[in-house]
């Protein structure tokens, strides 16, 4: 019984409930949402679509979770993704002279191109982290700089063009399948696992939660809060980079203007829907991932219901407001009073 209670208090509960509710809605009202087709050894269907389209967002949500845990935000992730995509595309090269629509080779070896893209993105994160933690610039302002400047940088890299690529191995990441499922899903799982292990099997997670909860106390305890914040921004940059490479691989092009556009807001939304507080402190990676899926499932549902494209944002807003209200402490207290008629745990100790 206590275990169930403890389980119900977890951050992820709400996002799981919301996602289940949405799926349940689709069971009854969106015919075909759950149908899976096996074509040429690949699964097709809305569910797969949610996973696949949600992949870039999930990467960004992972990075954003760390940043939000410090009590900051990183609104440059969309632009950083565009930079990473541009770097990758530039190094792979868009060459028309290929036969049968695909280029035989890339300008630079593929691992090097991807490595360079991810390194650039990480450096963007390091730059953000430097501004925020060492110079003390407000996170919103610091990352706004790169959000604006980042698209310019991406355009410089692509020289203002949309670079279309024709090198097939690069497309595997975004369009390939393995054992019937899109490859990018495996990558999401792997990256999420690494991020989880990094936060739990090292003490970074503890230091981060501590820094985000009470900066001053954490510093007094001998922990370099600035370094922790810096690392969080670097991770966020790296994750945005992976998302950027994925987007480029999926659309087979690097579009400095539109790749990753408005993703930062969806990423923040995913993290918050996952039960993470914008104030920082305790965080849940799983919650953020579920939050990202929720955002994507919502978008897909709205599309499938044939809601006109221009009202999508309004529908999203309504959902966000609802979940936002439910997450407030006041509402939770109110709910707790209805659910169990005993004082909450906060009053049991400390006389």
């Amino acid at each position, binding site marked *: 019984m206590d275990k169930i209670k403890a389980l119900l208090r977890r951050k992820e509960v709400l996002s799981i409930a919301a996602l289940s509710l949405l799926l349940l809605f689709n069971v009854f009202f969106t015919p075909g949402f759950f149908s899976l087709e096996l074509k040429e050894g690949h699964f097709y269907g809305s569910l797969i679509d949610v996973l696949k389209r949600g992949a870039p967002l999930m990467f960004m949500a992972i990075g954003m979770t760390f940043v939000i845990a410090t009590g900051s935000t990183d609104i440059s992730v969309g632009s950083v993704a565009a930079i990473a995509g541009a770097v990758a595309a530039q190094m792979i090269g868009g060459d028309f002279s290929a036969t049968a629509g695909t280029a035989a080779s890339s300008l630079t070896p593929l691992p090097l191109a991807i490595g360079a893209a991810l390194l650039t993105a990480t450096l963007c994160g390091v730059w953000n982290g430097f501004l925020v933690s060492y110079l003390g610039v407000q996170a919103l302002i610091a990352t706004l700089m790169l959000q604006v400047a980042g698209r310019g940088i991406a355009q410089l890299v692509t020289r203002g063009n949309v670079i279309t690529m024709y090198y097939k191995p690069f497309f595997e990441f975004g369009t390939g399948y393995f054992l019937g499922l899109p490859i990018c899903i495996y990558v999401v799982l792997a990256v999420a696992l690494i991020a989880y292990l990094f936060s739990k099997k090292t003490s970074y997670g503890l230091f981060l939660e501590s820094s985000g909860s009470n900066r001053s106390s954490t510093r*007094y305890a001998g922990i370099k809060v600035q370094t922790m914040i810096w690392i969080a921004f670097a991770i966020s940059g790296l994750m945005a980079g992976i998302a950027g490479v994925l987007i480029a691989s999926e659309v087979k092009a690097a579009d400095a203007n539109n790749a990753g556009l408005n993703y930062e807001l969806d990423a923040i939304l995913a993290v918050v829907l996952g039960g993470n507080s914008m104030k920082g402190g305790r965080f849940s990676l799983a919650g953020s991932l579920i939050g990202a899926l929720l955002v994507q499932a919502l978008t897909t549902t709205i599309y499938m219901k044939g809601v006109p494209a221009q009202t999508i944002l309004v529908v999203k807003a309504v959902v966000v407001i609802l979940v936002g209200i439910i997450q407030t402490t006041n509402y939770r207290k109110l709910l707790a009073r209805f659910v169990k008629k005993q004082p909450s745990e906060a009053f*049991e*100790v400390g006389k």
Partner: protein
Amino acid sequence: MPEEKVLLQMNNIVKIYPGVRALNNVNFTLQKGEIHSLCGENGAGKSTLIKILTGAEPRDGGDIFLNGNPVFPKTPMDAQKLGVSTVYQEINLCPNLSVAENIFIGRQPRKKIGGIDWKKMNSLSETAMARLNIKMDVADALGEYSVAIQQMVAIARAVDTNSKVLVLDEPTSSLDTKEVRQLFHAMRNLKKQGMGIIFISHFIDQIYEITDRVTILRNGNYIDSRPIKDLPRMDLISKMIGKDIAAGESYKDRIDGERTEKKKFYSAKNLGKRGVISPSDITINYGEVLGFAGLLGCGRTETARLIFGIDRPDDAEIEIKGKKVKINSPADAIRQGMGFCPEDRKTDGIIANLTVRENIILALQGREGIFKRIPLARQVEIANYYIKLLSIATPSCEQLAGNLSGGNQQKVILARWLTINPELLLLDEPTRGIDVGAKAEIMNIVVRLSNEGKAILFISSELDEVARCSGRVLVFRDRSLIGELEGEVSTRRIMETIAYAGQEEAHG
């Protein structure tokens, strides 16, 4: 004194906050042309009284008379119109605007067609500054002037031609000696013009230099009001902290141990920070409890912060165990074997939404670094060991630390430092705001650690606590170290040192 000289009278002022009577029938009288100090330790009610006078807080009882007429200021703007002006500790001015603009912001003199009359504004500003005996170019940006001048501008802004009462809340806290002179000069000028000035300061020397009369509050009660010349320093201090010095105490239960051989753990030469605390030399030995004593704002906490690297000293020479070291952050200090229980438990100590276990192992894990994570089982073991050792009342080590009572939170922080087995433990007000039982337990732990040969630095505003458990006491006043007491340290000796050290007149 003739009745018409009374400028401001506050009678039986009562203020009740939820659960606490912040002011209990407090009386206060200010004469024309008088500089009047309001004295008291933390929680005495000084700022509450000022807030009521300036209309920032409503009163729950009592009367205020200004020039004999009852007044009811509801907002600071009201009070300003009535002639009560306030300059707060932090200067709320715009450094990039000109001095004149700062003085007249929001009430610039207008020309007939609506534009700002710059000429008039500048000349009025010059007059206003001249009242404070300062000649300056009022068209210059405020930021180009020193803090003291900025303070003066803040006063000029507050002091209208119709101002009668000026409240200065800690005006000297960020000024150096020369700047304080300038400020005092200006204050004397205003006094000559018949203004009544309420002066709040932690600096005893300054109070004795500038004030005519002192009113003392303690725990929300009116204690006394007298001309300063009839109030010896010793009396002022004992009235502020509420100790009757006639009852001479002698404590026998001070920790006794072999104090014959003194081994230095920490020594600093020239430890100070400009504008925060004047430099001094400090040594801390193994196995001793070194007490820091003094009144609120005297520099005891500031010194501890410098020792622990929270603030950087200007140019100190620090030696630990005979080796020269640099301590620029708490992490450095911890590496050298120090731990620090800060004064403000909530903001600097406990991390409320982490568990007791996480709070306890935080410093130890911090020293180990990111990649050497202490296994969970070991963390639980450590946490439970200290929960038992310090009898921390918590249902389990996974309880959120924020749910614990104050005394237990303090023990959790103590446990955090015990895990790293420090050689020097700095305790800043470790017993503040916790109940008597927990207090005694914490004092016992301090004694035990000291007997184990650890160096302890003990800071407390309760002088008898310092006297009781310290083998040696450093006394601070007005942001500098003014004395060192050894041997039989009694509350009386500490108070005498605070009152008279460095004074020509050798009392008592």
